């Protein structure tokens, strides 16, 4: 194995694979390290993506898609529900296959990939990250690099090693559990989101149909409720109520960051991407598309830096700039929305749903829905005025998207 690479990417999820792919595509020599024995499993994900988001990175391919979705239904605590009119459809990916595909794209561009590779430390020289030390099947390696990209997921150890404060606040992490269920009876075209404090305080429960008779069913609770509630008990109760005849084919658990992007995602010779940089959408907890966008931008900026021979923090800040323009600024707004929605009681949510149902279906855009929510709870108006003041432009842009 070579002792020097232009770029070392740590973590073989969507963010890391896409970063490695685009860095290699831009001409850099790339090493991708994955902690587990395989790219892909274990998949800690509900696997849903929007068509337009996916297309920013790759063309949708039937072999990595489990199911095609045509709408989202929101369900209030009392069971009343509304659907959002979406012109664009979505997919449930098969993440095992999808992640493999992304890694193959990186490999095709010449990236070297090592699995079962655990990074012990980053190499530091005069305040610059200059490489990594890792173990793979009991052998130790030391590899020099011009740039390290940390895409090591929610744990974000690489960020800590690089001197970035990555610790999540309890209110900004969702403690999640999901079952893959069989023998469920439901519409396979619609994904369902349940908002209720009783089902999942400070979070929501999801039912994503993955095909005929099967679904990813899970929930997340805010870490701040973790002392009082056990997500597994809540999910067992939810499943017993909705799908009493179902069998559990797989259990998966995980922590999902629901916050804004870390204040620092770049250090000299170092970039963070994906869950590790807290680049998940804080309203939905979705991280596949935003992680891949971050990975693409990080990989591209890394390749440009290699070409110019400039790896200073300033040069790499171009990644930060492009990230905020593409997604990061929206995440600021989504974070505020999240904070507002989780202040609502179950009664507030029921009343808001009644108001939304009075809107004609074609007028159920996010802004009108949000207005309907607010009229139920004028005390939240103040929060939202701040939100609007800072983000009027973002909202207008988001609506145009």
């Amino acid at each position, binding site marked *: 194995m070579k002792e020097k690479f232009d770029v070392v990417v740590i973590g073989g999820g969507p963010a890391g694979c896409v970063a490695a792919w685009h860095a290699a595509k831009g001409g850099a020599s790339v090493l991708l390290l994955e*902690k*587990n*024995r395989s790219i892909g499993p*274990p998949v*800690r994900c509900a696997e849903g993506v929007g068509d337009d988001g996916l297309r920013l990175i790759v063309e949708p391919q039937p072999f990595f898609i489990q199911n095609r979705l045509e709408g989202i239904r929101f369900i209030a605590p009392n069971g009343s529900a509304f659907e959002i009119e979406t012109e664009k459809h979505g997919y449930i990916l098969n993440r095992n296959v999808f992640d493999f595909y992304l890694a193959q794209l990186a490999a095709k561009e010449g990236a070297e990939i090592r699995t*079962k590779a*655990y990074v012990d430390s980053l190499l530091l020289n005069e305040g610059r990250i200059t490489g990594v030390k890792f173990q793979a099947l009991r052998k130790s390696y030391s590899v020099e690099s011009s740039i390290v990209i940390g895409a090591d*997921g*929610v*744990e*974000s*150890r690489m960020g*800590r090693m690089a001197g970035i404060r*990555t*610790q*999540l*606040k*309890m209110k900004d*992490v969702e*403690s*999640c*559990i999901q079952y893959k269920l069989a023998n469920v009876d439901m519409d396979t075209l619609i994904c369902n989101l349940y908002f209720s404090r009783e089902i999942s305080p400070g979070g929501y429960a999801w039912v994503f149909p993955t095909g005929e008779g099967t679904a990813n069913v899970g929930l997340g609770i805010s*870490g701040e409720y*973790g*002392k009082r509630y*056990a*997500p*597994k008990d809540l999910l067992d109760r939810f499943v017993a109520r909705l799908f009493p005849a179902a069998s559990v084919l797989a*259990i*998966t*658990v*995980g*922590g999902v*960051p629901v916050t804004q992007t870390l204040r620092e995602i770049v250090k000299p010779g170092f970039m963070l991407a994906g869950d590790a940089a807290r680049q998940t959408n804080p309203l939905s907890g979705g991280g596949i598309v935003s992680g891949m966008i971050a990975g693409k931008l990080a990989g591209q900026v890394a390749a440009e830096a290699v070409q110019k021979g400039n790896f200073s923090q300033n040069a790499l800040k171009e990644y930060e700039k492009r990230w905020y323009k593409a997604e990061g600024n929206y995440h600021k707004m989504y974070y505020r929305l999240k904070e507002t929605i989780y202040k609502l009681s179950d009664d507030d949510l029921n009343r808001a749903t009644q108001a939304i149902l009075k809107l004609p279906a074609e007028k159920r855009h996010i802004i009108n829905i949000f207005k309907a929510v607010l009229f139920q709870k004028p005390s939240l108006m103040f929060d939202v005025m701040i939100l609007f003041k800072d983000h009027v432009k973002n909202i207008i842009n988001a609506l145009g998207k």
Partner: protein
Amino acid sequence: MIIIKENMCDFCGACVAVCPPDAIELREAEIRIDEDTCTDCKLCVYVCPIDTLEYAA
């Protein structure tokens, strides 16, 4: 101290993400808490989705 219940952990890393002193080492199927670094703050106990971790005085 924080005790890891045997055969319970799914190695998801939620605990690592909230640990203030970075006292948890997590590999593919291995988890260790460094007792010297751990401050018994119990955040890991609260965030664990399947109650793998437990505080014992």
